């Protein structure tokens, strides 16, 4: 089937309307597919797309400081290709790459743009497979219905299923479990948020627990080894966004149990380990990890002690906003609220497609839940709530910069700062330490800035009264305004608002000193 040159795809019932977007929390679908394909060893992706759509290669090379060429080639769609149809070019490029680099697998994906052409790409793949020595696969995602995260989840499942079915057909599928308890770690991928260090930490954790790591997928995995997946005793899916579909497939087909508790924070790490213990013992392992958990909690991880220390006491009741992907936003909300006594006024996620899970996880730990991928909505919420700190993405970090609120970055979209060279896992026991530092530094460096602001003006004889926008329907007397100006900058906005609310409720149009103090007594403004 040739490209429909006349444009518009068939109506599919979509009702979303054009959106004004300044910022995206998750990338387009093909990014997810490419992350999976290029995480595997010796897998190549062919991107059927116009010039300029192949910036995935730039992201991988620059953000991960990757030493190797990214195994993704754009089969360029230009005006000529559009006119002639792209089948020949795509098939040529697949077979050419098959010859040039002998990949085990070539994955073909369009982008949002080329998917509009509604070409029969499966047919392209079938044609190319005739000549290619390696496998050829069309990534099966709808580029307008799913985002990067969902597409990645789906592509990983698709590749796993492909190789397991292939092995089954060949009668090449090992059926026995490994002798010792073993695990597949599913969902570690290139351009994932701190994935590399998390993976190291998870491997250490498994080693501590006496569990062999059977396979880690997709990062660094060979598709030839996928057939060995069912030999593991269980699957561990640390991130909710990537790997669950694969784990579900493995559970359905091979009855493999799955642990999908993210081991982030002291409490959740313990819960994850206990779940593993339960699954292993159900298979006759007879392990007891309680002593290990206790030892790690009290002596190895410093996070529990940090929670009890005076530094953390001073954070008690401070307000924080959390925003990110499901995995990190939910885990962070629990850590802040449950382990550190910090008041989470809002927890939010941009994973709209999985909102119910998020709400169920965080509702008891926060005042408000926000499910949105509109950065303006999050910015407005932060400005309204004026938290003492934010834990969010790079976007929230910049919102915080504008509002002068410190922000610790806890989730993708990824940024080069999320590929530190030094060891910075978020998961496992060392992860609890790193998170404790992040929390502490976010609050205290914010406090330091405020202190500098307060004391900075006292250097000279001339005392400069710090200005504040008199943007209000209420009239502040000079003395009340002067007193308000003495309130430290980081709570001044809140005091002002509460005082005005108090005045409005009482029908006062002027805020005198007396009103100011009365408000403080009444509402703790």
């Amino acid at each position, binding site marked *: 089937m040739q490209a429909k040159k*006349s*444009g*518009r*795809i*068939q*109506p599919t019932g*979509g*009702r*979303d*309307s*054009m*959106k*004004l*977007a*300044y*910022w*995206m929390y998750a*990338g*387009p679908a*093909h*990014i997810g597919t490419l992350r999976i394909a290029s995480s595997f060893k010796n897998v190549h992706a062919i991107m059927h797309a*116009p*010039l*300029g*759509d*192949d*910036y995935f*290669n*730039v*992201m991988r*090379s620059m953000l991960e*400081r*990757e*030493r*190797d*060429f*990214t195994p993704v*080639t*754009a*089969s*360029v*769609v*230009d*005006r000529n290709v*559009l006119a002639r149809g792209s089948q020949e070019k795509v098939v040529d*490029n697949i077979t050419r790459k098959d010859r*040039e680099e002998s990949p085990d697998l070539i994955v073909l994906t369009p*982008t*949002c*743009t080329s998917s*509009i052409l509604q070409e029969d790409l499966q047919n392209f793949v079938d044609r190319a497979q005739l000549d290619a020595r390696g496998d050829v696969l069309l990534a099966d995602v709808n580029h*307008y219905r799913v*985002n990067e995260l969902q597409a990645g989840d789906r592509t990983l499942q698709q590749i796993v299923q492909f190789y397991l079915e292939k092995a089954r057909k060949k009668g090449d599928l090992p059926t026995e479990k490994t002798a010792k308890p073993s695990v597949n770690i599913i969902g570690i991928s290139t351009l994932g948020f701190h994935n590399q260090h998390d993976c190291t930490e998870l491997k250490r954790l498994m080693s501590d627990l006496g569990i062999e790591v059977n396979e880690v997928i997709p990062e660094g995995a060979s598709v030839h080894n996928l057939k060995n997946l069912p030999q593991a005793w269980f699957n561990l899916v640390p991130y909710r966004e990537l790997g669950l579909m694969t784990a579900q497939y493995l559970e359905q087909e091979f009855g493999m149990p799955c642990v999908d508790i993210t081991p982030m924070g002291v409490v959740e790490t313990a819960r994850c380990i206990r779940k593993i213990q339960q699954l292993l013992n159900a298979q006759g392992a007879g392990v007891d990890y309680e002593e290990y958990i206790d030892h790690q909690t009290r002596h190895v991880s410093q996070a529990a002690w940090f929670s009890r220390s005076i530094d953390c006491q001073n954070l008690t009741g401070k307000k924080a906003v959390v925003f990110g992907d499901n995995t990190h936003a939910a885990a962070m909300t629990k850590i802040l609220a449950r382990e550190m006594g910090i008041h989470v006024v809002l927890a939010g996620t941009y994973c709209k497609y999985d909102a119910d899970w998020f709400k169920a996880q965080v509702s008891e730990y926060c005042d408000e839940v926000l499910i949105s991928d509109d950065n303006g909505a999050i*910015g407005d919420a932060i400005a309204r709530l004026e938290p003492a700190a934010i834990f969010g993405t*790079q*976007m929230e970090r*910049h*919102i915080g910069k*504008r509002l002068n609120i410190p922000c610790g970055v806890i989730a993708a*979209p990824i940024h080069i700062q999320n590929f530190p060279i030094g060891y910075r896992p978020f998961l496992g026991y060392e992860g609890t330490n790193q998170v404790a530092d992040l929390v502490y530094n976010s609050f205290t460096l914010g406090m330091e800035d405020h202190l500098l602001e307060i004391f900075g003006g006292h250097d000279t004889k001339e005392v400069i009264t710090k200005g504040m926008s008199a943007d209000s329907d209420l009239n502040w007397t000079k003395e009340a305004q002067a007193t308000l100006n003495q309130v430290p900058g980081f709570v001044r906005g809140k005091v002002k608002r509460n005082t005005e609310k108090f005045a409005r409720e009482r029908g006062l149009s002027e805020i005198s000193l007396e009103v100011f103090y009365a408000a403080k007594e009444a509402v703790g403004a």
Partner: protein
Amino acid sequence: MTVAQEPTGLNFDCETGNYHTFCPISCVAWLYQKIEDSFFLVIGTKTCGYFLQNAMGVMIFAEPRYAMAELEEGDISAQLNDYEELKRLCLQIKRDRNPSVIVWIGTCTTEIIKMDLEGLAPKLEAEIGIPIVTARANGLDYAFTQGEDTVLAAMAHRCPSKVTSEAEKEERNAIQKLLTFGRKAEETAPTSEPKHPPLVLFGSLPDPVVTNLTLELKKQGVEVSGWLPAKRYTELPVIEEGYYVAGVNPFLSRTATTLMRRRKCKLIGAPFPIGPDGTRAWIEKICSVFGIEPQGLAEREAKIWESLEDYLQLIRGKSVFFMGDNLLEISLARFLIRCGMTVPEIGIPYMDKRYQAAELALLEKTCQEMGVSTPNIVEKPDNYNQLQRIKAIQPDLVITGMAHANPLEARGINTKWSVEFTFAQIHGFSNARDILELVTRPLRRNNSLKDLGWEKLVQEEATV
């Protein structure tokens, strides 16, 4: 027109390969900064938006003066009314930012679904009362920097052809104002009519470079009547039939054509003012068209070369390979050959031999004068094949897009990002140092690492 003939001594090739450049919508990243009262609306998909956010390194600027009109399934499938949808967004932009102009940037997607931006814009412009300029900066037809070409070509239509009020004339002539501001009244009072027909320059350059080039011409008695684009949309220059125009960037062939064919301007075809050699040639060509004898240019150029000597010592005799990215390749190669380098290959996404004719001629002449062989110019190169050639040639420096730099470095090949030349100030005499600062940085850095015996550190890591 004054465009030179196509040169013949150069070897041109077209691989029509799989190559990487940035998407032409990139141009919003610099154009929204250049035109301070503008708002750029990129009408495309998530793929376009994520590109702008990530690859251009602009993700840190929350809510800059550009945004995506993100096409959703309903838009693609034509269930929704394009006009109403765009109107809704543009009204929102008007409310939030109140720009003097909204530039619609069409993308591959608007091409494929044949969204009639040119048809919608005038109607919407009339309805909401803000000028709407449309540019088809799509990757089906253009590469990277050509995005600017599509925008400037569209804006060329919007330059007024006659100014009525004096006040507007004053505003339109902001550059002249800047240059005379602060002078004594008698010096400027009789607004001396220039001794030559009006000249308008085109190409988006940072303001200091605009001032600098304007001053260089002024020194020779050439008055610049205006620049396309100006600092503000409301200051777009007056263009009347018969005006002379000259480009400052090699990727503006469509703008040049529009100015010639639609605005009946006369194009001065010159090498581009990049490097002291190019800058001198550019000024000389403009002067020659106006019958002016340039003063002191040779000395000026010589002095600049002298001041570059410390850098030149680092690169003389070294080879540089252009993989091809931003269409600045010919000009940069010509300058670097003049600096004493050799250039085995110039990859370039698109080669307009007519618009770049004077530059190509200067390149050829430079090669002859420097006694080096002429580069192989490869249009639409195949990056995979280029990597094989690089492996064979082992050039001292590869100027390349961002995707290939780290892997080449890991294999012991010095690289410089081509995109940096797009964003740096490289035009005019004064900025020649800045070009060499960029070019020599990897050489200086890797020299210092080499002294350490770290050369083999990553070289054995893998083979190309």
